[in-house]
Structures are given as structure tokens and as C-alpha cells.
């Protein structure tokens, strides 16, 4: 029954009851009590669960990954790719180190090379602290999770690194990057910081139960550091393989002996059925439609891959299919998926499908979704909005993709706001809505200053493969726009969710990815896009979650109440910090853009006064000799000039101009170039060890 729900209520009561005590002790507002109680509970859960986390070290002790103990007799789980090195170094045992600072001999027990899982056993102690396993079927996007492991081998004392986040997506399918990397099916996507060395480590739910094994992450041009997308193999998938792993086997994944393809909207058909395969023996023929697999309706080939990948060979699975309008249903024992495995490994780890059959008979039916978990996840409204109002954008020729992004639906007619980017130049630009429908888009409005664009979706969806209109007799779509009217003004520290299409991990109608952060601040956008200054220099919302990933620009920033508070801008580099900036346009700016008259050929931006009349005159010449070459030292001040009258002298060092720090002479020139005659210029100069503030009014340019 709703165990989580009970826990939540208890937690609440504790929080409520402990308020007076904390108030008395710390003289704080009573309202902080609930926050502190939740923090304390989290610290305790983490402390307890961390004792089961293992640093797995190669025989040399110089490289490694992570793992988690799941039984007091020392059995534990990790990634296959973590123990691969240990298996190669025959004779020399690996070792697993625990947060007690001790190393224990580690033996590899069973392996799942296809699913990237391995079971190991630590020895050297009578009893180990084991983590409890959770039920990954009960997870929801937005749930709080935390990862533990040994990123970058930072833990010299073997205490795990703990990083917190939320579930960004469920049932994700991750292709192998090349033939040697493993496909992750039905995995859990999280925004917690997971890095090299975290491989094999546990993903915990808020109650400290293992819900997955972390194994992969999306990286980009910055190299192998976390950018907010990582993937864990779900514990429920691993559960089906565990009897085989524990029995010392090489466990194999399953095949139906047939492949499927998408054929129209939410329609999946068999395009190839191997002779004598389980599918063929059941009577499935090429062209038949796949209706359901393992008691779940199949709506895309990708989703079928997710479902199938979670099963071991020889597992019995119910399949429903349709042949010429007639449905059939049968429980089919899955065949093994042919994979190349190292012959040495095959020799060392036998296979035995009888173990799987036995496990299938004994395994209790997995918990059904629908358990009441309300009260633990604050993001229900925000997620509801994210799914209904955001679209995934793809550009390129039919059937191929050359770019991708995110947009937000802003009118019932299907207008979508997004950022200006090369994606919009694509020959075939289309939007995928939350129901998986694909709509052709055209650009109807663009704003070169704000770098925003408005798209209009076609009124009827098209077939994703042929670009022909869908055969279904559909009424023109009516969209629900994301309201921009009740522009909330989020405060620094407010939690927000960023919802979009980073790394296009959400395929078809899969819900967009979400990541959690807070409003980190507000500041003018002083940033470069590529090598060019970003034309928008107004205020932006700074965020503390990574927004510089491919596909993220155009994402909606949504607050706890489900309100749209910002739109993530294109990837830029901050001029102040030289880092990829995490930011969004405030919703007011998006609203202003939407109020503008629509045009796809904006007139050249009106010239500033400085551009019309030339920059105003101050009379300062900067030094340009020797080591002072780039420093804003004053060489001379023209007699009678505004600077002269204001009291600027030769050898003054300009520190700041109109509130802008002046680290180099170039910056001073940039500030002044934007000022017209009549504009004020206020300087802070350093003269000797003294700081002096001076102001002047610029005059007409001198000949």
C-alpha cells in the first residue's frame, strides 16, 4: 500500500511538531522548521545509505568506478564496463572500498555485458551494510533523487560523493555511441551531477532505496563533465537478471526474432520476422501490427525497443498483434539476442536459461503504477504545463535531422516561440507536440535584437516519414497556449523547472526532459554568441541549472505554481566569466516580443544616437606604450575638454566607466563608443592609492 504516502505524512507531522523546539534553540522564524526538518531527514537517509556505496578500484588502484552492496553477505551491483578491466587482469583481484576507509577483495560473480550490469561480491567482513532496493515502476518525473559514487576518484577516504537532483525523464532509450558502447533501454534520466567515476554507482530515491545503477551521461564540447543529463539502468530491469547474475552466469538479453518499424501515427508493424524465431512460431507475419508487448500498448518502435531490452532471454512475455484486422494474443518465450561476447568471458561465465525461467516463475508481479504518491513531488503542475505547451523542434530534410531545439506554444492557432538559430534555416522545420504528432512549421516573425523567433505550425499533422498529411480524418488542431499574461516575477532562490529537448533524448511522444534549478539572479546579458557580441543586452534571469546544451535553447522555465517565467536563450559565453552562461529571457521580454508587429524581415535596428552623430567627445587619450599597452592609463587630456574640466589627469588609471569595470583599455573604448554628445560619463579613477569619482558631459566630436 502507499508506503510513500505514509512516510510523507509522518514527515510532515514531525516537521510540524519540531518547530517550537528549533525556534527556541535558534531564535529563528518558526517557518524554517519544516525546511530544517526535511534537511535533517535527508542527511540521515544519506548517511545510512552511503555505507552501502562502494568505490571499485582496478587491480592497480589507479582507476575505477562505483558500486552498491545489496545484500549483507557482500553481493553488490555495478556496471559491466566498470569490472571489465578487473576481468582482463586475471589473477589480480580488484578491490572495493567502503566509507569505513577499508578496501575489501572484490570478485566478479555474474555479468550482463549487453545491459552493462555486473554483480560482484566483497569479502573480508562478516556482514556488510546493504542498500534496500526500490521499485522503479513507481517513479515519476520530478521526483527527488540522489546519486552516490566516486566521480574523478575524488574520495581518498572512500566516502562517496553525493549529488542531488530530480528525475528528468523515464523510459529513455540511449543508443550506443559506437559499436563498442552499450545500448541503454528503458533507463532513468536524471539531472543530478554524474561524472566519470560514478559508473556503477547507485541512484537512490528520496528514502534511500536503490532505483537504478548510474552508467552513462550526455557530454558535449566541454568534455567529460556533467551538463545535467545522466542515465541509470532501472532496478526493475536488473531485478529480472539478478538470479542469473547471482548464479554466476553471463546473462543474455532477449529477442523476439522479429524487427518492427513505425508505420504512421502510433502504428508499429513487423517489418522482418526470422524463420523459426519465437515470433514466427507464434504465427506473426511480416506486415502484422504490434499492439501490445508485456501488457503495455506499443505506440512506437523506439518504445518497443525499450520494453524488449528490459527482459532476459527465455523470459515469457505476452504479445498482442493484429493480422488483417484480426487480433491474436500469446505468451511467447523470448529468444536470446545474439551478441558478440569475448570468448574468454563466455568460458568463464556460462549461460543457463533455466535459471531465467525459474526466476520468471518466482518473481512476483511488479508493483502496478497508481500507488498514491501525492504530496512528495511538487512539480505536478509544472510538468503538466511543460508537456502540454512545449514542442520539440527538428530541422532538416525529410527523414533526417540536422538540428533540433525547443519551442513554446503561445497561441491557439499554433504559434510557437523559440530562439533564432541555424535550425530555423532548415528546409524542413517541424514541431513534435506532446501527443507525438508532427507539424510542419514556418517562421512568421523574427526579432534580431532579442534573437527570438515565432513559428506557425501547420493546422494538420504530417506523417513523420513521408511528410504527407496523416491519413486520419483529423480536425485542424486547436492548441492550448502557455499563458504569458500573469507574468510572475520570480525571486532569487525560487525553484524552477527547465523543460525542453536537450540532446533530443525524448523521442517521438516521449515527454520533454526537465531539470531543476533556482533563479540564481538577474543581470544584463553581457555575452558573446560564437565570436559576436549578443545583440540583446537587457536583463536576463540567471539559472543554476545548465542551459547551454544542444536543444535546450527555447525551453520554458516554469515555477512551482506552473507559471511560465522565462525562455532559455541561445548558447552564449559570458564576457564577465568566460563560461557558458545559464540564463533565460524573463517572461516580460517574451511578452513584449509577442506584442510586436509580426515581420520576418525586421527593419535594420534603428541607429543609436551615438551611431548617428558619432560618439561624444571626452578628450581622454590613453597610454599605448610599453607594458601599459593594454591598460587604461590616461596619457593626456585635451585642454578645455570635458575630461579636463572634470579633473582627469595624465597617469590616472581608469577603473570603472558608467558602472562598468574597465580591466583593459579596450573596454573603456567600447563604453565610450556607445555614448552620444550630451550623454554623461562617470568615471572612477585611481590616482596613486586614491580612488576618485568624476563625472562629465560629453560634447560634439572634435575635428
Amino acid at each position, binding site marked *: 500500500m502507499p508506503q510513500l504516502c505514509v512516510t510523507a505524512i509522518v514527515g510532515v507531522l514531525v516537521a510540524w511538531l519540531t518547530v517550537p523546539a528549533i525556534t527556541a534553540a535558534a531564535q529563528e522564524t518558526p517557518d524554517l522548521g519544516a525546511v530544517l526538518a526535511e534537511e535533517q531527514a535527508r542527511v540521515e537517509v544519506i548517511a545510512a545509505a552511503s555505507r552501502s556505496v562502494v568505490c571499485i578500484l582496478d587491480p592497480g588502484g589507479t582507476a575505477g568506478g562505483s558500486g552498491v552492496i545489496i545484500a549483507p553477505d557482500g553481493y553488490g551491483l555495478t556496471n559491466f564496463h566498470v569490472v571489465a578491466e578487473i576481468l582482463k587482469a586475471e589473477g589480480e583481484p580488484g578491490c572495493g572500498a567502503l566509507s569505513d576507509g577499508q578496501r575489501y577483495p572484490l570478485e566478479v560473480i555474474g555479468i550482463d555485458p549487453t545491459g552493462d550490469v555486473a554483480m560482484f561480491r566483497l569479502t573480508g567482513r562478516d556482514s556488510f551494510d546493504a542498500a534496500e532496493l526500490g521499485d522503479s515502476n513507481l517513479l515519476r518525473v520530478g521526483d527527488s533523487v540522489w546519486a552516490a559514487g566516486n566521480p574523478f*576518484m575524488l574520495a581518498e577516504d572512500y566516502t562517496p560523493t553525493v549529488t542531488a537532483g530530480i528525475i528528468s525523464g523515464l523510459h529513455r532509450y540511449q543508443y550506443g555511441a559506437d559499436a563498442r558502447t552499450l545500448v541503454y533501454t528503458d533507463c532513468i534520466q536524471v539531472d543530478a551531477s554524474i561524472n566519470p567515476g560514478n559508473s556503477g554507482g547507485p541512484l537512490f530515491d528520496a528514502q534511500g532505496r536503490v532505483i537504478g545503477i548510474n552508467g552513462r551521461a550526455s557530454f558535449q564540447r566541454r568534455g567529460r563533465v556533467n551538463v545535467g543529463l545522466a542515465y541509470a539502468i532501472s532496478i526493475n530491469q536488473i531485478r529480472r537478471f539478478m538470479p542469473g547474475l547471482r548464479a554466476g552466469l553471463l546473462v543474455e538479453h532477449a529477442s523476439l526474432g522479429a524487427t518492427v518499424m513505425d508505420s504512421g501515427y502510433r502504428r508499429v508493424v513487423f517489418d522482418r520476422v526470422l524463420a523459426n524465431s519465437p515470433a514466427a512460431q507464434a504465427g506473426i507475419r511480416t506486415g502484422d501490427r504490434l499492439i501490445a508487448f508485456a501488457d503495455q500498448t506499443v505506440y512506437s518502435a523506439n518504445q518497443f525497443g525499450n520494453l524488449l531490452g528490459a527482459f532476459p532471454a527465455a523470459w515469457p512475455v505476452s504479445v498482442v498483434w493484429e493480422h488483417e484486422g484480426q487480433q491474436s494474443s500469446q505468451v511467447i518465450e523470448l529468444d536470446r539476442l545474439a551478441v558478440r561476447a569475448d570468448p574468454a568471458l563466455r568460458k568463464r561465465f556460462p549461460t543457463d536459461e533455466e535459471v531465467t525461467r525459474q526466476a520468471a516463475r518466482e518473481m512476483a508481479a511488479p508493483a502496478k503504477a497508481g500507488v498514491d504518491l501525492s504530496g512528495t513531488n511538487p512539480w505536478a503542475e509544472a510538468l503538466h504545463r511543460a508537456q502540454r505547451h512545449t514542442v520539440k523542434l527538428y530541422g532538416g530534410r525529410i527523414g533526417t535531422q540536422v538540428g533540433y531545439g525547443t519551442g513554446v506554444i503561445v497561441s491557439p492557432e499554433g504559434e510557437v516561440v523559440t530562439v533564432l538559430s541555424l535550425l530555423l534555416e532548415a528546409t524542413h522545420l517541424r514541431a513534435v507536440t506532446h501527443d507525438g504528432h508532427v507539424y510542419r512549421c514556418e517562421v512568421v516573425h523574427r526579432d534580431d535584437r532579442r534573437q527570438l523567433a515565432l513559428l506557425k505550425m501547420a493546422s494538420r499533422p504530417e506523417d513523420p516519414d513521408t511528410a504527407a498529411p496523416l491519413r486520419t480524418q483529423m480536425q485542424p488542431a486547436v492548441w492550448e497556449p502557455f499563458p504569458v499574461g500573469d507574468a510572475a516575477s520570480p525571486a532569487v532562490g525560487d525553484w524552477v523547472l527547465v523543460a525542453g529537448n536537450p540532446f533530443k533524448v525524448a523521442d517521438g511522444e516521449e515527454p520533454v526532459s526537465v531539470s531543476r534549478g533556482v533563479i540564481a539572479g538577474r543581470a544584463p546579458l553581457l555575452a558573446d554568441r560564437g565570436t559576436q557580441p549578443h545583440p540583446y543586452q537587457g536583463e536576463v534571469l540567471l539559472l543554476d541549472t545548465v542551459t547551454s546544451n544542444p536543444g535546450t535553447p527555447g525551453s520554458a522555465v516554469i515555477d512551482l505554481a506552473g507559471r511560465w517565467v522565462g525562455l532559455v536563450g541561445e548558447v552564449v559565453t559570458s564576457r564577465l566569466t568566460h563560461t557558458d552562461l545559464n540564463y533565460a529571457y524573463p517572461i516580460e521580454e517574451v511578452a513584449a516580443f509577442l506584442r510586436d508587429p509580426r515581420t520576418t524581415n525586421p527593419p535594420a535596428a534603428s541607429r543609436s544616437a551615438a551611431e548617428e552623430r558619432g560618439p561624444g567627445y571626452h578628450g581622454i587619450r590613453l597610454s599605448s606604450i610599453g607594458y601599459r599597452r593594454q591598460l587604461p592609463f590616461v596619457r593626456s587630456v585635451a585642454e578645455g575638454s570635458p575630461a579636463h574640466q572634470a579633473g582627469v589627469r595624465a597617469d590616472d588609471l581608469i577603473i570603472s566607466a558608467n558602472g562598468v569595470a574597465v580591466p583593459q583599455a579596450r573596454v573603456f573604448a567600447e563604453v565610450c563608443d556607445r555614448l552620444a554628445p550630451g550623454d554623461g560619463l562617470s568615471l572612477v579613477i585611481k590616482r596613486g592609492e586614491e580612488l576618485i569619482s568624476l563625472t562629465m558631459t560629453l560634447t560634439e566630436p572634435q575635428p
Partner: protein
Amino acid sequence: MMVLPLLLTVLPAWTQDPARLIEGIEPVEGASAAVVLHQAQAAAFGEAAKHVAPSVVRIETVGGTQPVEPGGQPDKPRFIVAEGPTTGLVYSADGLILASTFNFVREPVSITVILADDRRFVAELLARDEVRRLAMLKIDAADLPVPAWVESPAEIRVGQWALALGRGFAGPDCSLGVGIVSGLNRMSGLAIQTDARLSPANFGGPLIDIRGRVLGLCVPLGLDDAPIAGVEWYDSGIGFAVPYVQVSRSATDLAVGHTLRRGMFGLELDAQPGRPPRIIGLRDPSPAKRADLRPGDEIIAAADQPVASFADLRRILRGHTAGQWVPLRLRREGAEMTREVILAVPEDIGPPAATAPAEDPSTR
């Protein structure tokens, strides 16, 4: 649902009207409990930040050049240090300002400190602690607001809130990043670890707890000794802050202008993984030579901690600075002995012999 009325009684005074929660939206039954808690958290983040913000200063520098990275690794993207403002923290009421060495790697010719109340001061860089990546500035000011530190290491616990404040984006307010404490005793005990997003925007600024007390000073720390090592992890959720127990050890030296540097013995070591490091060469002159260390000696302990590998030795020495004496336990031809060796600065050590450098531990 019963939870709802109960929870509304703890609605924080500083959150906005509860009606805001359900304004124009269908209320999600039961979810409000979590929403209210999260709104209370958000408000607490803001309050904690406001509490410490008066002690967080902006540092502006003029001039300088990009630091040269010794032995830069090709697979590591080189980070370009920007010219923008950075962050510092009031350390004493009479004008000591703590920051990170990162803020000054460009070797600027002028440093200015802007207090939270917009007052501006010329600052003198007193000294740097290159091991802890701390720097101490002095400004001619009095009655500065000194923040409260969490002084006892036992009070810092993995999983607690950790908020990073910075002034690197030059807005009127501090920028705020929210994370948790990820680990203790990292980098040979020099730092605590956090998954709050740290970057040049808040290096030199404080990492604070939910009550507005300083947990540590945010600095970049990495796997090697390059002056900007660790910056490549910016905003990745791998970040470090130097806690009070380490800051206090360093600050006294820094305040009197004493620079703390990494020290060397002048040893060339064979760094076989999983084996104690073996001496294969000695620089001349060097402290190792003067202490009569010899090729063939194995180092089995340093500073009273066992050394099972080169990595162990590296870790132990990481917490030491030049000028410190370190007892080394040696194994020589079956016998064991102890030698006290002082750590010297590189300038006091002779040229390297032509041998391959020791390997760094790698990760995957």
C-alpha cells in the same frame, strides 16, 4: 486529503499569498504539501543569501594576462580566464578580505574592492595560499560585516543544503546557486565538496548553509597543480570550498603577507600503481639530498600516514606547504628508517635528471 490543512499551518510568513499557488490553475490534490515545502525552501534560500550578502564583495581588477599552464594536458580544454569582476568575502572587520588565488591568476596591476553598500576601496593583495587557493586582500576600511562561519568540522554533514554566493555577474545582488554538501575531507582534507554550481562567477565567494553561516570559501581545485586546475569543472556539480578549519590555518600567515606555496623534496620517483613509490633519482641541491635519501629507497609512510602508492604520497603532501618538515619512513635494503625532510620551493631545487616524470593517477 488530510495533509493539506496541516501543512498550511506551517506556510512561511515570507512566502507570498497562498492563493498564488492555485491562481488560475486547477489545484493538484495533495501536491500542495510538497509545493508549500519547496516554497518554504526557496524563501529560506533567499533569506540565507540576504543574511550573508553584506559580507560578499565584488573585486575588480585592471590589467594582467592569461596564466601559462605548465604541462597542460591535451585532452583538457584550456580555460580562458576572463577579465570580469570576481568575488571576495569580508574576513575581518578592519579590512581583511578573503578571496581565491583564481581571482588574481592574471596578475593584475590594480585591484579594487566594492562593498555590498557600493563603497569602493583600493585593495592590496597581501599574500596567496597556493595550496588552498586562498588569497588575502587588505582594504582601508573599518566596521565591516564579518559573517558567521561554521567553525566545527563535525557540524558539516553530507546532504545538507549548500548555497554558493557570487558577484561575478555584476548584478546588484549576489548570484545564488543551490546544492548540497557532497563530501567532506576532499583534496587531502583541504576542502569540502558540493554539487552547487561553482564557477568564476562565485570563486572567492562563500558557500553557506541554510541558516546563513559560511561553510567554506569556494575555490577551484583539480587533479593537478596547474594554477587554474579545477576550473574545467565549472558548473558541473563538482565543486570545492575551503572550510574554516583550513582557512584559519592559512589566514594568519596570509594576513602578515606570508605566501604559502606547494613544496618539493627534489625526488624522482618510480610510480608503479599499487606499490610504494621508489626513489630513482635525486635533484642536487635538494632537501632530499641533504637528508641523505638514496636511489632505491621506498617511501612507505609520510607524515605518519601509510603510503601504499604514489597516489597516497601525493595526497598526503597536498596538504603541506613549503617550509614544513615532513617525516618520511623509508625502506632501504630490508631495513626501515625515518628521515625528516623539509619541503622546499622549486627555485631551491636543482635541475631535473633526464627521466620520465611520475604518472598521475587517472580516472575513468
